[in-house]
């Protein structure tokens, strides 16, 4: 009697289980398919297109940004975003690119995922991250305004949110007449020993500077430069602060944006654009996998790459990155990127591979 009941029970429960399983599998498949299909259909929010679910993003309520700009710069950027989307809080971590990537990889290797989006000041860590599968594959609707060479290959990992470029700058009170630098080789002038500043090896723009000048002037260039005993700093703000006060005579990697900001305060400095060109690096922005706030992250990227966001990147004096967006207006200074002779690496993979060598050589130059 009991066994019969059991058999009936098992039979009906088996079929029940089977039904549940099938439905579950179907749902899973549909969901996976949906995810595979990628973004939803883009919607317009404010004045740009976004592939994010804005309601969901606002529900997530926060976006965490890892970036290399100064605190004030990041604040400006994030405050602008918050103004447009008041329901989404912003959090950030500021470290120079090398340190930023070090922190990110440490966290991720320990399964801690705190960051939503990350912005680097050069492509090396970005390509490394891409190789490791750290970027969420997301092609922003706004990316349509960016040429393929300004995006990751394949597209969807990161995009060029702007460009920063650097020349030589000097303090007019300390450097006069014959000594005034005109070409890149002038930073090797022994008169500038113990009086010239550059950035540390963690800086993206410094990497590009090193790479390009090495390509142009040979391996011996930086060996000569080591004799200058240059001083290293973390940010362009610090470089220009010291330059304007006269603590340094010359800055060997002087970014246009930093120059403009300090010149407005009345600093007695001058920027030199060597005829061979100004070394330039893109700043690259992308979403991370396992982001704690994925929809907000997408919204942010779309915003940042849109004309609206690019206006902040280009317009805020503390950021002043030239935009590579096809329809971008001039920068706040009235200039465009095309007004300058910019030196970009031609072979990106060679550039990326050189990073290790750069860090080693640059550390040695810095005395580390």
């Amino acid at each position, binding site marked *: 009697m009991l066994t019969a009941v059991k058999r009936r029970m098992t039979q009906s429960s088996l079929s029940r289980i089977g039904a549940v399983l099938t439905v579950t599998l179907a749902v899973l498949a549909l969901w996976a398919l949906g995810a595979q299909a990628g973004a939803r259909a883009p919607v317009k929010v404010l004045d740009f297109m976004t592939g994010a679910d804005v309601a969901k993003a606002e529900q997530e309520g926060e976006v965490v940004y890892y970036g290399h700009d100064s605190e004030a710069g990041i604040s400006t950027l994030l405050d602008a975003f918050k103004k447009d989307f008041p329901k989404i809080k912003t959090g950030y971590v500021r470290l120079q690119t*090398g340190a930023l990537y*070090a922190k990110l990889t440490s966290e991720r290797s320990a399964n801690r995922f705190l960051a939503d989006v990350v912005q680097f000041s050069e492509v090396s860590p970005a390509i490394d991250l891409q190789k490791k599968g750290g970027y969420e594959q997301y092609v922003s609707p706004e990316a349509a305004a960016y040429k393929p060479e300004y995006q990751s290959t394949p597209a969807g990992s990161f995009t060029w949110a702007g460009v920063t470029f650097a020349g030589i700058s000097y303090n007019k009170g300390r450097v006069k007449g014959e000594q005034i630098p005109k070409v890149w080789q002038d930073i090797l002038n022994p008169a500038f020993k113990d009086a010239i500043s550059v950035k*540390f090896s963690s800086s993206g723009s410094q990497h590009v500077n090193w790479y390009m000048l090495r390509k142009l002037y040979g391996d011996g260039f930086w060996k000569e430069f080591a004799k200058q005993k240059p001083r*290293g700093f973390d940010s362009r703000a610090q470089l220009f602060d010291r330059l304007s*006060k006269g603590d340094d005579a010359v800055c060997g990697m002087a970014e246009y944006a930093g120059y403009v900001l300090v010149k407005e305060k009345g600093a007695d400095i001058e920027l030199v654009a060597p005829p061979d060109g100004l070394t330039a690096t893109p700043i690259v922005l992308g979403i991370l996998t396992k982001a704690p706030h994925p929809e907000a992250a997408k919204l942010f990227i779309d915003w940042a790459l849109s004309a609206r966001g690019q206006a902040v990147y280009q317009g805020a004096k503390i950021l002043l990155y030239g935009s590579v967006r096809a329809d971008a207006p001039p920068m706040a200074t009235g200039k465009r990127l095309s007004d300058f002779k910019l030196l970009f690496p031609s072979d990106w993979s060679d550039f990326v591979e050189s990073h290790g060598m750069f860090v080693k050589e640059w550390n040695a130059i810095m005395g580390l």
Partner: protein
Amino acid sequence: MTRFRWFWSLLVGQRVVSLLVGGLAAVLVLYPIFYLIQAALNVGDPQARPPQEYGLANFGGLFQYPTILWNTVVVAVLATLLAVTFGFVMAWILSRTDVPGRAVFEQLMAMPYYVTPLMGALAWSFLGAPRSGFINQIWRAFGGAEYLIDINTSYGIAWVMALFEGSVAFVMIGAVMKSMDPSLEEASQVLGAGKVRTMLRVTLPLVIPGVLGATIFVFAEMLGSFSAALVLGLPARFYVITTAMYQMLAQYPPRFPLAAAMGVSLFAVMFAMLFLYRRIVTAGSYATITGKAFRPRPMHVGKLRWILFGICAVYLFVAAILPILTVAFASLQKLAVGRPTWQSWTLDNYVTALSLDAVRSALWNSLLLGLGTATIGVLFMGLLSWIIYRSRIPGRGVIEYIVMFPQAVPRLVFAFGMLWAWLSFPFSIYGTLWLLLIAYLTVFLPLGVRTISSVLLQIDKSLEESAQMCGASWGYRLRSVTLPLLRPGVIAAWLLLFVASVRELGASILLTGPNAKAITPAIVEAWFSISTELTAAMALIQTLAVAVALALLFTFARRASQYGGE
């Protein structure tokens, strides 16, 4: 007794609580150290967790940087010499002579401690940078050549560290001088020796062990100094071990193994120093510390009085007041110069600083953390003090060592170990304020336990024993007798912990996260990435916030004690 009562009394029984508290302390301290040593011995893939290969190769890397090792030692030695000199002179003047205003000066000697080396470094950077420093600008205006002082050297760093650490040396040496039996000196004088001879033949030899102990202690601290070397050394390519470690971690790929090896070496040396210090202090065959409170007879110094008064005033001015004034001066200018014109004054820096969400949230976080660290800290460290110095629990000697351990580890090095340790921790406290709280509680263990136990040891054992003989259990005794009597020590420890955690840099700088920012690392970040004037404004805001908070807490504590009855 009901079963519940029995279980409850077992739970709060002395043994169980001691085990829990002592165990917690051990975990907090040893867990990061373990990871640090593990990282130092990792000769395989730095990112591998756990390490695949172990070896001593990383320590070999140390020898590639002899300059850094040398710099560390030079700065430490110079700073120690200066600090001990300052401390000795001030202790001498304030406890052995009859200079007017001694009591006030003694209280004021705590000020340099609250100013902290970071503030001092910022201020002296404004003052003494070879080109832009105010002092040098004035020097050149008067026709001087180049510059008068260059603060970006080992001397400069040592000077700033010594000004700050001088107050620590003062407290230690002062304690030794105060506990000297004046009859030892009087005997010398009665037998005919003059003041100077007495000082050289009787006083000095008796004080030497204490001074030696203070010197070793200060030296150990100077080896691990960070903030001054960071602000003043980096611009001049001058690295010490701690700042070199910081740089090595701030690049990609980060040089974990080398940084860990440096950290472990530094820690080993500091540990040896502190071990030596303890031997000297506890050996004390110079029986000047008799446990009785002496009032040493102050020496009459006649006309010298005003000169000595001047020395005290100058020290306090240079160590405490000048930095604050300088930073304030710089913060109110657009571009800080020594002789500002009318146009260069502005309040913009404060406006910007206060509008920066980073500053507001960082300040709020730090104050909150300060409250948390202080409150939890006094409870935790109070219990630890009691266990170590008043209980009979076996193993309390081990707990004492564990609690004093963090003294031997520079904060940055500890934070490095903590980073690895707590990164892998199953519960996600990484990147939250909880991690900072845990870090603070750990690195401040020596400070809190030392403060509370110095008061605890003054409470006669018989006060607790008589409560025991009246039948009171351990918990009852603690609540009704020990804690009320301990109150001044608890309050002092609370305030110390509060200020220390708001001012903390070395540990915090590695452990902050997107939503867990602290104010002092924020100030340093600002120094590196925004204008110096803005940084000055932030530093002053932080100082004011702490001062206001302390004032509020002081009045609160005072009012509470008034109602609490005598």
